[in-house]
């Protein structure tokens, strides 16, 4: 990109303008089959092996709605505190583009299945921000294009394009927020927190894995600025396909700075779509946004209306799993941790790892301690996410178990973790290979204690004389002699025992 764009500093932009956001998130459902036909949705298939007359848009083909797709939409709607329509239809969104072989996308227009909800999101400092949901509606994904002949596989300069329709027709739920106002300078953080919370919700519902890097969840960021203190929204830009949490944050920030530069310079914002560039966090102009009526929406005649009965909706509501926010609050209470500590766990992405470690048998405090301490330190040093470390919750649980049983002390446990992360094998293998067991052989330990007493006669006398606190120095000597492989508490007991002193 050689286009240079004027930006003003983020702080200056926020001194004059208030950002207004609208976030549109597409979630690919994890159904076995497509939304309107029985073709498989399995990823990674050879091109055009998962198509049929319906998803290829052949004349006379009759689409039939996937019941699980509708149920998933209702689940998402309910989890987002939405009303569920008593009756709604599909609509054809007409446009000519080769990624849709039908020349229209089956979607919902004025009758979304879910509407008027909200999602509470928690920011990094613990503040809760309520994002209002406009609607969640059902639609279908498009095919995948490959552009051939261009320099970089991009559409510009391509001589022709190749289409694989395996993805065409996979169920999508589009979730649209109401205009998000009042976030002020925290707009980028709110956007990121919203998408993160939505992703956690979708996963908890089990309706999609919502892996953004796989395109299973994609975000479009609408942004406009208005002078602080004014009511009327400014003209918005729509940055398409922002596909990671970090990118959502960066895209909002960039657009705030770009809009402000245009407005301060006396220019006008063009309503257009923009492309986000992962490399430098910038956006560039796409196409001028078509007016909604250009899509010539009309009710889909081939699909009859969907009318979720109230009984069915209530049944689905009753079957909803514990939602992420509720679960977090429950765990916080169960573990008895402070709100800020819980927030640190969330910010570190450690919650699910800790839960999995506890499920694998570790005491809660041990699971928290290792993930938030030693493992967080490793993750920071190597610049990776916690869940990308080469250690599993089950392995961490095993380390915790070895500590509880007295086979390892903390110092040795850290070495075991280091070994596991270094690819030396599971905890037991590392213990074995590195010879990291706590010396529990009373004979060997007793000998080490005797030696420490003999070579520190002055200290030993003090202890005999009642200065129990001096025992620490002897414990240290024994620990050193056993290269840290002794149980310090047991060593202390032995020392006091041999010197004939009680704990006083």
């Amino acid at each position: 990109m050689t286009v240079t764009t004027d930006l003003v500093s983020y702080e200056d932009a926020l001194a004059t303008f208030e950002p207004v956001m609208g976030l549109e998130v597409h979630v690919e459902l994890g159904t076995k089959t497509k939304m309107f036909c029985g073709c498989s949705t399995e990823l990674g298939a050879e091109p055009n092996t998962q198509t049929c007359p319906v998803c290829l848009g052949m004349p006379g083909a009759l689409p039939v709605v996937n019941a699980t797709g509708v149920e998933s939409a209702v689940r998402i709607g309910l989890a987002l505190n939405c009303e569920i329509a008593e009756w709604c239809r599909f609509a054809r969104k007409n446009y000519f583009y080769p990624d849709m072989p039908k020349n229209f996308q089956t979607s919902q227009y004025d009758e979304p299945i879910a509407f008027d909800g909200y999602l509470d999101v928690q920011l990094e400092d613990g503040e809760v921000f309520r994002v209002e949901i406009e609607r969640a509606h059902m639609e279908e994904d498009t095919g995948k294009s490959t552009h051939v002949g261009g320099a970089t596989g991009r559409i510009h300069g391509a001589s022709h394009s190749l289409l694989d329709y395996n993805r065409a027709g996979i169920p999508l739920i589009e979730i649209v927020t109401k205009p998000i106002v009042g976030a002020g300078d925290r707009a980028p953080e709110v956007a990121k927190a919203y998408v993160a919370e939505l992703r956690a919700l979708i996963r908890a519902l089990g309706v999609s894995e919502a892996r953004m890097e796989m395109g299973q969840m994609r975000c479009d960021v609408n942004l406009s600025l208005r002078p602080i203190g004014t009511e009327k929204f400014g003209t918005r830009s729509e940055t398409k396909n922002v596909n990671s949490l970090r990118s959502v944050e960066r895209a909002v920030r960039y657009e705030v700075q770009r809009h402000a530069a245009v407005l301060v310079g006396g220019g006008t914002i063009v309503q257009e779509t923009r492309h986000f560039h992962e490399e430098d966090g910038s956006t560039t102009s796409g196409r001028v946004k078509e007016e909604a009526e250009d899509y010539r929406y009309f009710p889909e005649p081939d699909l009859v209306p969907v009318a979720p009965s109230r009984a069915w909706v209530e049944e689905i509501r009753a079957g909803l799993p514990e939602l992420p926010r509720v679960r977090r609050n429950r765990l916080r209470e169960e573990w008895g941790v402070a709100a800020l500590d819980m927030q640190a766990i969330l910010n570190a992405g450690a919650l699910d790892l800790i839960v999995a470690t506890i499920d694998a048998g570790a005491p809660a405090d041990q699971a928290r301690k290792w993930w938030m301490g030693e493992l967080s330190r490793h993750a920071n040093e190597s610049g990776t996410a916690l869940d990308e470390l080469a250690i599993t919750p089950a392995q961490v649980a095993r380390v915790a178990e070895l500590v509880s049983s007295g086979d390892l002390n903390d110092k040795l446990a850290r070495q075991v973790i280091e070994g596991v992360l270094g690819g030396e094998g599971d905890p037991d293998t590392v213990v074995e290979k590195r010879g990291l067991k706590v010396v529990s052989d009373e004979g060997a330990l007793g000998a080490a204690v005797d030696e420490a007493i003999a070579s520190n006669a002055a200290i030993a006398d003090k202890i005999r004389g009642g200065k129990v606190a001096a025992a620490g120095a002897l414990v240290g000597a024994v620990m050193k002699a056993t290269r840290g492989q002794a149980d310090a508490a047991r060593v202390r007991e032995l020392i006091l025992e041999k010197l004939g002193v009680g704990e006083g």
Partner: protein
Amino acid sequence: MPGITREEVAHLARLARLELKDEEVDHFATQLDDIIGAVARVSEVADQDVPPTSHPLPLTNVMRADEVRPSLTPEQALSGAPAQEQQRFKVPQILGED
């Protein structure tokens, strides 16, 4: 009842990727006007108590279970394609959008 203008016909033709000659624009403007006029008569008898109808059959909730059915083979799927490459549909250069 406002008539369909030539501009509206030209706009629709562009959206539908149809190339119309000037006289065709006039021709279709008149025809569309007649058709819409005829359909509009429905609103003379349909009052508030008659909901707009998009589907003639009183059916709702026709759904299928989420079970995989056999797809076409790629050869079948591509058999009607004017051009293909790498087992994919080959289409001319796409301009103006991404």
